[in-house]
C-alpha cells in the first residue's frame, strides 16, 4: 500500500516538476528575448500570459496539501511491464527537462536544413513575385532577404531578370548536395508557428573551394550579383557570384516569418 502511495506522490510531483521546468524555461526565454528561437513572435504574449497563470497555480499547489484520500481511492493494479516502462518514461522526460533547463538555447542547424531539403517547398504567399521585383527601385534589392531571393529563383531562371540586381544577404552556410565543394546555400529557416515547422530556404552561392575558408553552419553576409551558375554539377541554374563573403555573428532573430 505504501508503495502505491509513494508512486502516486511521485506522479503528482513529477507533473509539477515538469510543468515548473517548462514554465521557468519559457519565462526565462521570453525575458532574454530567445523565445523566438522556438516559436513565432506573434505567440509570445499569449505564451507568457498562460505561463504566468500556470506559475500561480504551481505556487498555489505548494500550499494545498495532496488529497491523499482521493489518491487512495484511485489505487489500480500495477501491470507487469509498468515498472520498467515507467522508469524508461521517467528517464526520457528527465532528458527533455534537462534540455529545457540546462542546455543553452540554440537555433536549428544544417542537419535539419539538409534533412528537410533547402527550397523544397513552393513559394509562400507573403514573398516577392517576379512582377513586383521587376518594378522595384534599384535600392530596394539590397533589402531583399534570403527568402525573397530564393522565392524569385524558384519563379524564374531567366538570367536577364537578375541583371543589375545586387544581392546583400545574411544566412548560415549549408552545402549544395550536388556540388558541395563549389556551391553552398546562404540559408535561413522560415517559421510559420514554431521551429517544428521550419522550412529551409536558401540562395545558391558559387564560390569554388569555399571549404578552405568557411564551414557549414557558419553565419555569413554575402554581397554579389546573380549569374548563370558556372558549376557543372549543381542543379541550380542561377547562382550568386559573390564580390564579398564576410563571416558574421548569428543574428538575434535567426528565423524569417
Amino acid at each position: 500500500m505504501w508503495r502505491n502511495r509513494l508512486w502516486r506522490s511521485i506522479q503528482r510531483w513529477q507533473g509539477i516538476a515538469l510543468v515548473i521546468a517548462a514554465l521557468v524555461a519559457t519565462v526565462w526565454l521570453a525575458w532574454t528575448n530567445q523565445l523566438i528561437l522556438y516559436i513565432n513572435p506573434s505567440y509570445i504574449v499569449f505564451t507568457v500570459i498562460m505561463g504566468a497563470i500556470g506559475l500561480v497555480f504551481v505556487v498555489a499547489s505548494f500550499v494545498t496539501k495532496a488529497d491523499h484520500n482521493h489518491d487512495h481511492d484511485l489505487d489500480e493494479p500495477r501491470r507487469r511491464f509498468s515498472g520498467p516502462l515507467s522508469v524508461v518514461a521517467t528517464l526520457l522526460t528527465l532528458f527533455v527537462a534537462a534540455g529545457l533547463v540546462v542546455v543553452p538555447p540554440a537555433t536549428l542547424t544544417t542537419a535539419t536544413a539538409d534533412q528537410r531539403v533547402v527550397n523544397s517547398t513552393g513559394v509562400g504567399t507573403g514573398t516577392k513575385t517576379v512582377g513586383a521585383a521587376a518594378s522595384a527601385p534599384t535600392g530596394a534589392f539590397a533589402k531583399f532577404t534570403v527568402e525573397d531571393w530564393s522565392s524569385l529563383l524558384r519563379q524564374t531562371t531567366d538570367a536577364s531578370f537578375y541583371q543589375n540586381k545586387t544581392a546583400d544577404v545574411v544566412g548560415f552556410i549549408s552545402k549544395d548536395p550536388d556540388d558541395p565543394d563549389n556551391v553552398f546555400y546562404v540559408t535561413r529557416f522560415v517559421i510559420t508557428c514554431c521551429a517544428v515547422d521550419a522550412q529551409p530556404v536558401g540562395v545558391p552561392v558559387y564560390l569554388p573551394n569555399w571549404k578552405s575558408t568557411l564551414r557549414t553552419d557558419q553565419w555569413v553576409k554575402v554581397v554579389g550579383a546573380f549569374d548563370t551558375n558556372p558549376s557543372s554539377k549543381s542543379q541550380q541554374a542561377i547562382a550568386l557570384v559573390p564580390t564579398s563573403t564576410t563571416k558574421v555573428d548569428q543574428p538575434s532573430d535567426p528565423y524569417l516569418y
Partner: protein
Amino acid sequence: MGTRVEERKRVFRAPTITGLVVGLLGISAVFAVRALTPGLGKWSLPNQLQDLLTLSISVIVESLPFVILGILLSIAVQVWIPDRWIMRVLPRNAFLRRTVISFLGIFLPVCECGNVPLARGLIVKGFTVSESMTFLLAAPILNPITILTTGQAFGFGSWVFVARIVGGFAIANILGWLFSKHPDQDSLLTDRFAAECRLPDAHEHDQTRWQKSVELFTRECGVIMPAMFIGSLVAGLVQVAVPRAILLGLGSNPVWSILAMMALAFVISVCSTVDAFFILPFASTFMPGSIAVFLVFGPIIDIKMLTLMRTTFTARVLVRLTVIVGLLSALIGLVINYVA
C-alpha cells in the same frame, strides 16, 4: 463523523508554509540553473542531437500555453460551471447531441493539445466517452481560429476549405457514432482515468472551489505533462530521423501524395490553428486532395496527440481511431484528387 469532517478541513485548509518555502526555493533554483548555464559557454553537441533538443523544446513551448488553457477550461467545466449550463442545454437525442457537441469548439477555442484535458473534464462532468471523443475530434477543426486561418490560406470557397470543415465534422460524428455502439463505454478508458470518473465527489463540502481547482490542476499536470514531454521527444526524434526528401518525391501521385501527407501530418504534430499556413507552400507540388488530408487527419492524429490521448483512452481504442480516421480522410482526399 463531525470529527472526521474537522480533520479533513484541517488537511485541506491549513496552508503549509513549509511547502510554500520549499516550492519557491525549488522554482528559484531552477531559474538560477537556467540563467547561469549559458554563461558556462556553448555546448558543442552533434547537430542531430542539438536539433532533436531544439525541435522537442519547440513542441513543448508551443503546446504549453494551450495545455494550460485546456486545463483551466477543464477546471472551469468541472468546478465552476453549474451542471445545467452544459448538460441541460444539449438535446436528448444522441445523434443531435453529438452534432451540437461537435460545435462546442466554437465557444472553447483551444487547439488540439489543450482539448485533451478539456475532453477529460467533460467525461468527468457526465459526457459519455463517445460524446467526449466527438468533441475531441471536431473541436480542433470546427473552431473560429482554424476556420479563419484555413479560409485565409486557401480561400473560403476552395475544395480544401470545404473538405476540411465538412470532413472534420463528418469524421468526428462517424467516430462518435461508432464508439457509442460499444456496450461498455468505461472499457474504452484507461484504468486510472475510469477509476477517477467513477469516484463520487466525496469532498464537495470539505474543499473550497479554489482548493478543488488547484488540486485538479496538479492532478492534470501529473497526467498530461509526462505525456507531452515524451510526445515531444518522439516527434523530435522522428523529424530528425526521417528524411523529408522521401515524402516530397510523392506529391504528384493521387494515392501516394495522400499517404505522404498523412505521414507528414503524423510526424510534424503542428497545431490545427496554424497548420493551413504551414502547408500552403506545399500546395504547388502536392495534389489538392492530399493537402485536404493533411488538414483533416493532422489535427486528430499525430505523434503528440496520440501520446496525450493515451492518458485517457486505451491503446486499443487509439489504434482503431487512427485506422478509421486514416481511412476516412484518405477517402476524402481520393474523391478530391479524382473529382476536383
